[in-house]
């Protein structure tokens, strides 16, 4: 049973961008045809018509840019992420779902979904997290956007999705998903999330030699870029097979065991 309702099917609306592009092109062609017809009927008015047309196009582009720059999307998304990192998941989920009510472009919708998936991941609701990341990936692949934005977002979402699959024990799917995280324009943090998923896969497969070598290879990357929760997970994984015990808060122990499986049960102890 999930701790929160992260996403209701009714929360998702078709991304607005595709519809807008089609309408804008139709409008522009209609205006051009009308202007040309006018120019044919009244040749002396042609310069005026085309001057007006040019001004209209430039003004429309400028208005679109100014409107986009005034969007509160980034601020709203930062507020969601801030609430999540402050461990106020209820607020983060509520804010993210409220964002989905607004008309969003495809990559924006995927970013909000990714934030919701991260909330589910933090709460240990990995099935919900995986499902939300699948939706985010679907949106990213189906919506027109710049190649760089697509690559950046896809790698981040895929690396997190691989981790959720690995935590659910679906290791084959996790491995297959990891293969899609090596795009040229990936965000640097995607590498951290991908390494984290690899470590969990190795731990769950019981491949402890491989786990040890992966831990050695990614030690610096993880210590310099992973957050506290992931660093604790890595510390627990590095203690597998030793008598060294890691002491953590009860909820974190629950999360680490849910992620890495029975192999870490004896090396993580809950302390208040």
């Amino acid at each position, binding site marked *: 049973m999930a701790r929160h309702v992260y996403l209701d099917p009714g929360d998702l609306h078709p991304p607005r961008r595709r519809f807008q592009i089609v309408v804008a092109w139709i409008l522009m062609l209609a205006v051009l045809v009308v202007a040309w017809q006018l120019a044919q009927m009244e040749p002396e008015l042609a310069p005026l018509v085309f001057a007006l047309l040019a001004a209209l196009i430039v003004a429309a*582009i400028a208005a679109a*840019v*100014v409107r986009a720059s005034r969007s509160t999307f*980034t601020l709203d998304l*930062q*507020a969601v992420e801030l609430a999540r990192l402050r461990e106020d998941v209820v607020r983060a989920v509520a804010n993210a779902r409220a964002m989905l009510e607004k008309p969003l472009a495809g990559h924006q919708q995927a970013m909000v979904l990714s934030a919701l998936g991260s909330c589910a991941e933090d709460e240990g609701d990995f099935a919900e997290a995986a499902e939300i990341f699948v939706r985010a990936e679907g949106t990213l692949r189906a919506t027109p956007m710049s190649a*760089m934005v697509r690559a950046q977002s896809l790698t981040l979402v895929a690396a997190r999705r691989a981790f959720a699959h690995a935590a659910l024990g679906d290791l084959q799917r996790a491995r297959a998903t990891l293969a899609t995280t090596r795009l040229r324009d990936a965000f640097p943090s995607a590498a951290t999330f991908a390494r984290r998923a690899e470590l969990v896969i190795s731990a769950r497969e019981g491949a402890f030699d491989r786990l040890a070598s992966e831990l050695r290879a990614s030690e610096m990357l993880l210590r310099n870029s992973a*957050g*506290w929760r992931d660093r604790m997970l890595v510390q627990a994984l590095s203690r597998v097979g030793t008598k060294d015990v890691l002491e953590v808060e009860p909820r974190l122990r629950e999360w680490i065991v849910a992620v890495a499986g029975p192999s870490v049960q004896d090396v993580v102890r809950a302390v208040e």
Partner: protein
Amino acid sequence: MKLRGYNATIVWLAVVGTVTALTCVAIVGCGLLQRFELMVFALLAWAITNLVIVWAIGGNHRKGVRLNNDAVLLITRGDLEHANAKLRTAVSGVFPRDVVAMALFNQGVVAVRTRDLETAKARFRESVAMSGGFRLTRARGLYEGLSGAQLAFSCAVTGELDEAEACLSRLDGPGRASPLAVAYAARARATLALKRGKLEDVVAILDGERALLRNALAQNDAVLSEAMRAYALSRLGDAYRAAARTTAPIYADDLARAYVRSMLPEVEPVLVQQ
């Protein structure tokens, strides 16, 4: 070094506007209106020119972002020399202002890692300046917030407390609320309070953002924050500690210990060897 960041949106608008105006002048002035196929040709040329402009500006932006991404990956892997080489290319080239601001911020991070706080402050100041001004972008002030918070921290560490305070006072505003900037700002406020001997403020600030600090900061910075809190509690005495807060041992590896020693040597004794 002269920084040559340009405002990509303004440049794009200006070029598209000029091309559109020239196309209209050509259509009207050359009498293309009487020949439909010639007018269509002119409009096609207009569309293709605009696509080329978008492609050129976008490609330049992508190149700058790639340099930054590669550098950040190298920084996280500890290869600071190669990271700096990539960042120098981004800073010395002609790229959009956000890209240059990002590179300057990352250069500041490298300088902090190498304990060169004077260079760090210079890079963070440049990054703040590069991020500011009139902008038409969705993520306004992103690097202004990050660099401003890091500048405040660096100033507090080197004893320039008034400048640290001034930097922190500029951080409240829309667009500067990225979680990492908020975390850096909280740490800078705590450092400033520590340097001013306001130990209760140190504990209050760090307790107020404890979850954010541990989740948002990487190991060195998270250890430094915990060490500041433990140090302040230890100086405040047993009565305050028992009544207000407890503190667990703060484990630090060699790298984190060296970082804490270089930033705030007075708090190092509270660390426990990992």
